[in-house]
């Protein structure tokens, strides 16, 4: 049975190849790329369970079971890492997710076309600036005494603060600079979804005497709900992967109690201390939580709102 089935499958493939050979040849390098740079590293996850010896290779190295995971769970700053990672990501989500939606809604009701276009265009600008530049600007602006934020504080009679040296302030700096950088760009998708809302709905609502705020609540938000949910699920899937670059670049020895997160820890134990197995295990732990959150958010939204990513 199976051999017959396989043969027909093979023949089907041969037939399709004959017709679509150009497409097969086009996709081949892409497939090779994904295998080498995405699937081979997945195989490398085995490192998380092995005592890696370069000479023996990944397969030949001896198994150590869950040793690295146990070590991670019992490391002295385990809870600190989890707490910092979650604080930054949940805070970013709570602030950074709704603000672009509100921004897009407000833009949508801006009657002055020129102002609307200008605000939109300028709001994209920070997105095109590199993390290195953003972090340099943050550091320069917040320097004690000479940083422009402290100069401004001085103008209104407040004392100068060395912002980057205070662990308590780290999360606010991280999140709100992120809002500054990302809100215009993230709003694009909602702006384009709002442009697709049927104008007749609005006309009917105006006839019925609905105010703009009521129209926002009862027409616009329901119309872009599926976009919102989709982006929310995606966002959940990267909840634990707080941008490495920005945290790493803003980190210093004084704010470290609040700024050491899982991804910076993975980098340090992996590439600075060359502790490959342990680093891979910590990274895997992070990825798994992300996948669980993504699938969880997807399941819940499928049940509650009948929207899902996959």
């Amino acid at each position, binding site marked *: 049975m199976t051999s017959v089935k396989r043969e027909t499958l093979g023949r089907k493939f041969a037939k399709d190849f004959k017709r679509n050979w150009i497409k097969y040849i086009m*996709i081949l390098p892409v497939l090779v790329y994904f295998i080498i740079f995405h699937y081979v590293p997945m195989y490398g996850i085995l490192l998380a369970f092995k005592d890696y010896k370069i000479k023996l290779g990944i397969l030949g190295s001896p198994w150590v079971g869950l040793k690295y995971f146990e070590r991670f769970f019992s490391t002295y700053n385990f809870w600190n890492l989890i707490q910092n990672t979650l604080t930054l990501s949940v805070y970013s989500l709570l602030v950074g997710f709704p603000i672009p939606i509100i921004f897009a809604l407000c*833009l949508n009701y801006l009657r002055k076309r020129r102002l609307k276009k200008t605000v939109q265009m300028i709001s994209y600008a920070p997105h095109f600036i590199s993390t290195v530049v953003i972090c340099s600007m943050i*550091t320069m602006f917040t320097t004690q005494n*000479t940083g422009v934020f402290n*100069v401004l504080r001085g103008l209104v009679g407040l004392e100068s603060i060395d912002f980057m040296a205070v662990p308590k302030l780290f999360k606010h700096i991280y999140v709100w600079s992120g809002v500054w950088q990302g809100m215009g760009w993230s709003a694009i998708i909602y702006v384009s979804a709002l442009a697709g809302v049927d104008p007749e709905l609005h006309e009917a609502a105006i006839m019925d005497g609905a105010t*703009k705020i009521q129209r926002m609540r009862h027409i616009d938000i329901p119309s872009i709900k599926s976009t919102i949910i989709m982006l929310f699920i995606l966002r959940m899937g990267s909840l634990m992967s707080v941008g490495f670059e920005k945290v790493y670049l803003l980190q210093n020895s004084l704010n470290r109690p609040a700024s050491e997160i899982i991804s910076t820890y993975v980098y340090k134990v992996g590439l600075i201390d060359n502790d490959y197995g342990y680093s891979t295990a910590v990274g895997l732990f992070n990825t798994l939580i992300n996948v669980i959150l993504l699938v969880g958010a997807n399941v819940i939204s499928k049940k509650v709102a009948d929207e899902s990513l*996959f």
Partner: protein
Amino acid sequence: MRKQRVNRVKGFKSDKIFDGVNVVVMLALLVVFAWPLWFVLIASISDPILVMSGKVLLIPKQLTLEGYEQMLKYKELWTGYANTIFVTVVGTVLNLITSVCFAYPLADKNFKPRRVLLLIFMFTMYFSGGLIPGYLVVKNVGLLNTRWAMIIPSLVSVYNSLVIRSYFINSIPAELEEASLLDGANSAQYLWRVVLPLSKPVLAVVGLYYAVSHWNDYYTALIYVYKDELYPLQTVLRNLLLSTQALMNDTAGIVDAAAMEEAFNRAMTMKYSVIIVAAAPMLCLYPFVQKFFVKGVMVGAVKG
């Protein structure tokens, strides 16, 4: 038009308040977005001492191009520039070619392995081997410490390719393919002569995404590149910032404070001008492509 007229007749009081508040908030946001960038620009052409004492906030004072002149003499910066330009140009071209190779076959409903391949590619959006396994692969294929390490490992972005794919599906009429196949063209000729010329907007947007990600990339070099002469612009910039900070921390303990302060001020001026030269190319590029943004970004692209 009609919407506005009706509104004006009714003239809700709450709507007027809303409009007023909205305009004020938007103007405030405009300032919030633009001022930090404006400040860096004016700081780069003003006297550094005035900048540090907070005298330069809205308009440049005591114009000087000293920062830019200093920068011209800073050799590392130019190597960084050259490396970044190489990576951005070569990288973006390769990215676009491979993304089209991804998008075109997978946009075709008659291409049999379409679903399987999509699944294989999209899975990598959510699950990856992580830092060390990825590092070992790059090391084993011999890319470590080459400029190619900043190009090849991130050759195809699934998201960007899906954006192109959904454009192919939604914006190119299927009849065109039938017509050109009837004319005796094969699918490569059809792609080259019909699909790509019609896809300029999406290629411009995705090309910009790729270019920006290369230009602004710091992470890849941090992990895969350990040679000064291969550092991209962002790494050079970062090192410059760190050295100015170190200089600043040193000033306290050094006797020749005046000379130290001068060096520090120089570094401070240069830092603003370096930021300008590093950020300007992309900031000048995006307004040309921005009218396509709304078309290019689609959630539909990600939904499998």
